[in-house]
Each structure stands twice: as C-alpha cells, then as structure tokens.
C-alpha cells in the first residue's frame, strides 16, 4: 500500500467535516465538525512528516492540537452563554449580524 492513502483519508475526512459545518445547525455539532477538519489536517501533517523524514510536521500537528483545545474551550463557553440567553444552540437562531 502506498502511504499516500493516508492523504486520501485526510482529504475525505476534511471534506466531510467541511460539509458538516455547512449542513448542521447545532452549534456543538458544528464545532465537532471543525474538530474533524482539524484532525484531518493533523493526519495530513503527520503523513507529510513521515514523507519528508523530519519531525516538523508532527510539531505543527501538536501545536494545532493546542490551538484546537483553546478554540474549543472558548467556543464552548460562547455556546453556553448564548444558550443561556437565547435558549437555543442552533446557529440559525443567531442571525443578528445581518443589516
């Protein structure tokens, strides 16, 4: 088997995640989709690391995880506070941004 298949897997997962962001309305699920996209890219990074024989890809993936953690923490906090005031976790209910 060619390790390129990992990349195909990564692409597939990324696409599924992205579609999920577009389709799902629950903010929490939306976040999960984003996490999936991040994970997919991490897989790609790890594969590239292997391809080039250096560990830098893994380092980046590591940092990605850290950033993802930070993102999740803040994002979930936002979801909670929105839910508190609006009693809904659906992103479609928060459309106050429009003019």
């Amino acid at each position: 088997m060619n390790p390129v298949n990992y990349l195909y897997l990564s692409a597939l997962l990324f696409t599924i995640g992205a579609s999920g962001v577009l389709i799902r309305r629950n903010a929490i699920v939306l976040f999960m989709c984003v996490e999936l996209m991040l994970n997919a890219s991490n897989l790609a990074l790890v594969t590239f690391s292997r391809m080039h024989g250096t560990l830098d890809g893994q380092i980046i993936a590591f940092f990605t995880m850290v950033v993802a953690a930070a993102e999740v923490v803040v994002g979930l906090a936002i979801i909670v506070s929105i839910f508190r005031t609006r009693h809904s976790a659906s992103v479609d209910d928060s459309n106050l941004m429009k003019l």
Partner: protein
Amino acid sequence: MIAHLAAATGTTSTGEAVQFWVLAVIAVGGALGMLLMRKAVHSALCLAATMMALAVCYMAQGAVFLGVVQIVVYTGAIMMLFLFVVMLVGVTSEDSLKEQLKGQRFAAVLCGLGFGVLLIAGIANARLDHFTGLAEANAEGNVPGLARLIFTRYVWAFEVTGALLITAAIGAMVLTHREHVKAPRTQRELAAQRVRDNIQVPPLPAPGVYARHNAVNVPALLPDGTVAEDSVMATLRERGQVRDVSQAMLQRMAELENSTADWLGRPSSERPAVAGPRKSLEPVPNHENGEEDAQ
C-alpha cells in the same frame, strides 16, 4: 515498534495496509455518523470513534507521542468537554430535519463533493511516490526528537501557545461567569411578590400526579384530565423536553372518571369533557426572572 514497519520506500508493510483499511473504514464511518446523527450525543460519540482511529493512524506513521496525546487530550479531555456541554444544553435535543436556508443543503453537498474531488485529484496529481520514513528522525525515540525540536527551534511558538491556552482559559471563565447586577431575590421576597401579584399563590402542582409515570418530564393531569404544563420544571419546558401525555391515556382517564361517576350516580354536568390541554398560566413568575427579561 510499528513505526519500524514503515519502509523507506513507496510502500508499506502488508500489516500496516490491513490496519489502514480497517482504521480508514472506522474513521470515515465515524465521520459520516457524526455528520448524519440527529442527536448531538451520538455525533460526539461517533467523532470520538474517528479520533481514536486517527490516533492509531498517527502511531502507525511513527508519531507515537501525537497518537497518545490524541487519545489522552483530544478524545479524553476535549471530547468530554463537548459531552459536558451537550448534557448542559440538552442530551436529547435534536436538529429538526427541515432546512431553513434555501438551497443551503444542496449547495453544501455540491461544494463538499467538488472540494473532495479537487483535493483528491490534487493529491493524485502530485508526485508523492517517495517516502523517506521516520527511522532516522526517530532514532533516539519519537518523544526526545519532538522535545528537542519544541524546546529549540519552536520554543517561541511553544511559549506563545502557552499564553494562548491561558488566555483561552480565562476567556472561557469570563464568558461563562455571570455577575449579579443586583442582589438575588430571596425565596421570601419571591413569595411575597407572588402573593402581591396574585398569580399562582398556592404551590405549583407536582409532576406525575394522576399519571402512569411519575418521571419529572411528565406533566401532571388536572382533575378534569387536562395537562398541567407548569407542573414540569422550567428547564425542561425551556428545552421542550416535556413528554407528551398520550391521547389514549387521557381517553382512559376520562373513562375512569365516567365510570366512577356512574358508580356514584353523579349528573352528567359534573362530568369532565375530554378536552385538549388546558391553557397554561400566563406568566411563570417564580422561575428565573432574568431569563424572562432576556427573551
């Protein structure tokens, strides 16, 4: 180590191939499951499965440390955080199937497909036949190798991410913390208010009275057989998690009443009509006043 299985050439060992195909199916299946499950809890569990599969993939590719971190931190901590929030928001809350944005779903699928095709075509077109492998880089072990890099070349980024994490933690606290603008009203004051307003002076009905179930999410039935919505706690009502009292059961209640009345010989005017749910009381003053205002 599994990593040693990875050859320096363009192919991998058969073992890894088998492992890959199994993991790939799990990962894609989990991802699709996350995408398609209506309940957030299910989605979260599917995602957890995907992440586990990915963790194994990492390890298979020589990123042992990352694989462990993926399982411990990602699946173990972050996904649990997700689950906590899901529980807070409502385990059973579901997405309605009705799409509100016109053409959104169609466009999303189209974009997704197009994007996937593009990515895969891009990868297929790229010349990626040579794999160096990590044998050399991981010579002194994956963790020491990573550590060397993190604390030398990437030390600055590492420090910055540390700051980022702290900031995020504080941010989350600030966001979820609620300052009381005025002193919370005591129960005594609330009761006094209730009497003053003359709304629902007696205590609220308890759930499950006259019911087959005495679960908290089943409303009580009033003596005439109608549903008393306010017997269910406000949080559940807000989430829309009040369980329906089925029509058949109401029917049964009415029959029971009627037969009781027959046995007692009461006139028909005092018998309950089988009616729809009773109108709930207008305001619910003693439950979370602040939220009423926010709406």
